[in-house]
């Protein structure tokens, strides 16, 4: 597939180097801060489970209590495991319950020995969590070996979004039987701004189902059954995004989810989450994903729902390069990088389809080893569902022609409703027709001057923009509305109060295990 555009390798190398330079200050920021959610993720891996009667998870209660007493700057691990030792409580969840009742005080011990002991205990607990993640990864490898990967590229990715995990499950299984390789359970609107992860099986989402550990478990178990039935490992996707990104990443690792939506800037831009909060959470969650063997899906496609897909094409490229840099830095390998982009050019534009090919091929050739995530048209979809199905067909064709890795199946009712059962069936039929009938057309696809010229132009614009970002800093670029025309200053946005600078003695037993 590679090499159709004849990109100049020196130009490509320059783009990567600029992305690294633009990203490094943010990495430094992430390494020197922590957040409530990072700390809660640590506690989850260290074994805290469950929630109080109001549904507030014990990890939240515990982190809040620690923070009240000593702040976050030291990390919660030492205060918590020190308290565990000093109160004689055996179980961290019990400790959390006691702390919530006001029965425990937290402190950073003065004595070096106590610190070392607390660190050691914390580390042991965290390692147990990570071991579970490792077991899950090995289990996935085994199941893939047993049932096999999808027969074709791109993998076919379908969403379910009923709001009720018990409606989602049969719909997901039906979708897999109808040909889906990857099932994504869309989250309820609003979950991204919850500063806790709900508990248990849920039936009450709006336009999506809450991401909870139990929902993860139920769906993964159901899809394991279906994988067996079909002789094909069905992957499960959810969202490590929003205020609880690190924790959800941990839960995904614990419950063997296979892919997670996880973007370095999506929360900032589209959920108005504070940039620093996001970057810190981001790095931790990616370290977990790296360990868990989870493929991340980044969110560049979203930019094209607010910005124009032609004008802003280079911002997608820049974001992909940044996402790649942050991902590599956090330990993710190329096969784990489902970099996002989308078929969102105004279909009335002359040569719109060829522009799509140019953009998609540029992504393909810039990131030859990444399983690119190819998103369907949404912005220019209308209530004309007949036209919608046609556009989705050309989207599928563009995916096949440019060797995309993960094909998010478009629905003809995009502008109308969250997908109906029949919409998915019609959409899958569309994908099957295109991949079966024209899937090999890339053999006959040799971009001419128009497509090559456009790809080159986008790459040049991307490099120009990266240069400006290196000069101005990424945080300023975000504040200026560079991505998705959303202006997000570094000192604003939700969740900023959950960020803390790491003290000298900051300790995080999970990061320790992951770096």
């Amino acid at each position, binding site marked *: 597939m590679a090499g159709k555009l004849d990109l100049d390798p020196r130009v490509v190398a320059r783009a990567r180097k600029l992305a690294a330079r633009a990203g490094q200050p943010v990495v430094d920021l992430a390494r020197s801060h922590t957040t409530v959610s990072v700390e809660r993720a640590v506690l989850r891996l260290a074994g805290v489970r469950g929630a109080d009667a109001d549904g507030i998870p014990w990890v939240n209660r515990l982190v809040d209590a620690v923070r009240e007493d000593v702040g976050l700057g030291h990390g919660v691990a030492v205060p918590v495991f020190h308290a565990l030792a000093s109160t004689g409580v055996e179980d961290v969840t019990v400790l959390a319950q006691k702390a919530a009742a006001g029965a425990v005080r937290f402190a950073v011990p003065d004595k070096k020995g106590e610190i070392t002991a607390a660190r050691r205990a914390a580390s042991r607990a965290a390692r147990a969590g990570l071991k579970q993640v490792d077991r899950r990864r090995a289990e996935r490898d085994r199941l893939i070996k047993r049932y096999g990967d999808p027969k074709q590229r791109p993998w076919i990715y379908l969403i379910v979004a009923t709001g009720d995990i018990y409606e989602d499950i049969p719909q997901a299984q039906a979708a897999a039987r109808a040909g889906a390789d990857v099932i994504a359970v869309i989250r309820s609107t609003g979950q991204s701004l919850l500063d806790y992860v709900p508990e248990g099986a849920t039936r009450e989402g709006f336009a999506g189902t809450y991401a909870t550990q139990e929902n993860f478990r139920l769906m993964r178990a159901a899809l394991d059954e279906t994988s067996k039935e079909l002789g094909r490992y069905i992957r499960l996707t959810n969202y490590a995004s929003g205020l609880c990104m690190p924790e959800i990443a941990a839960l995904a690792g614990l419950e063997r989810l296979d892919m997670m939506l996880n973007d370095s800037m999506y929360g900032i831009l589209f959920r108005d989450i504070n940039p620093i909060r996001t970057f810190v959470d981001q790095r931790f969650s990616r370290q977990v994903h790296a360990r868990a063997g989870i493929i991340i899906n980044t969110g560049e496609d979203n930019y094209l729902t607010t910005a124009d897909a032609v004008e802003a094409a280079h911002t997608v490229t820049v974001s992909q390069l940044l996402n790649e840099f942050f991902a590599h830095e956090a330990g993710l390998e190329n096969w784990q990088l489902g970099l996002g982009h989308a078929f969102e050019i105004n279909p009335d534009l002359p040569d719109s389809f060829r522009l799509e090919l140019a953009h998609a091929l540029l992504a393909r050739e810039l990131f030859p080893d990444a399983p690119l995530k190819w998103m369907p048209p949404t912005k220019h979809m209308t209530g*004309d*569902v007949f036209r919608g199905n046609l556009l989705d067909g050309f989207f599928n064709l563009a995916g096949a022609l440019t060797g995309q890795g993960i094909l998010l199946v478009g629905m003809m009712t995009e502008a*109308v*409703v969250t997908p109906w059962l029949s919409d998915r069936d019609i959409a899958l039929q569309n994908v099957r027709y295109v991949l079966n009938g024209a899937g090999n057309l890339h053999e006959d696809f040799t971009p001419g001057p128009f497509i090559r010229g456009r790809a080159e132009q986008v790459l040049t614009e991307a490099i120009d923009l990266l240069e400006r970002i290196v000069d101005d800093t990424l945080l300023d670029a975000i504040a200026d509305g560079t991505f998705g025309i959303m202006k997000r200053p570094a000192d604003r946005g939700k969740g900023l109060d959950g960020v803390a600078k790491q003290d000298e003695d900051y300790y995080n037993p999970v990061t320790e295990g992951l770096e």
Partner: protein
Amino acid sequence: MSIVRPYGDATGDGMVQLSFTLPIPHDKRAEGAAVQLAGKMGMDPAMLVHAKQMGDGFTFFVVYGKVNHLVDTDKVQVVERDFPLLSAKEVNAVIKRRLRRRLNVVGACIGTDAHTVGIDAILNLKGIAGEKGLEYYSELSVTNMGAQVSVPDLVETAREKKADAVLVSQVVTQRDAHLLNTRAMSAAFREALPAGKRPLLIVGGPRFDELMAGDLGVDRIFSRGTTPREVASYLVHALVGSSS
């Protein structure tokens, strides 16, 4: 499960999709008119999701919404197969044993209709859907008159060939051509032959309602997706009696 509702993405949501054109230009009133129609069809709420003017005086609409009608599957009327489905071997054996002569079948596409693919699929050796056509059955003697056969010619040939059954295909339905032609055909046979001597009259085509046999004056109607074996089995059932 006897009472069901349409299913969009949750049990009982009653959701359906509807599209149509109204002969009025596009404006707010036209959109209201579209919603009014959807309402009369039982959609409530009806979401008008697309409206596009075509030419001067027409607007196309797409509407999604919930219908409140219940479907009672117990009350559904269908022509269920009320005869056993036989293999070609069995068909031949029963005819041989019971009738002791070959059964004569005359087929045609009547009126101005020239769509022979359907009747050929039933009659010709080649058949359809992996099943051989009636010509393959050694105990059936098949005359396929082809397309655009006039009713008098058909009656004449049926008489000449001593047809036990006449198989007529009708594919074009515009302005109810298929119904008009079928009625003309059955009337002609009624006129030309006394009740006992009349062949079994069968019509087929993708847009027939199988419940209309009586209305059209024929013995049986076959619709979309018919296979030759079903027809052969019905012939045996109706003309020769049960296979046992």
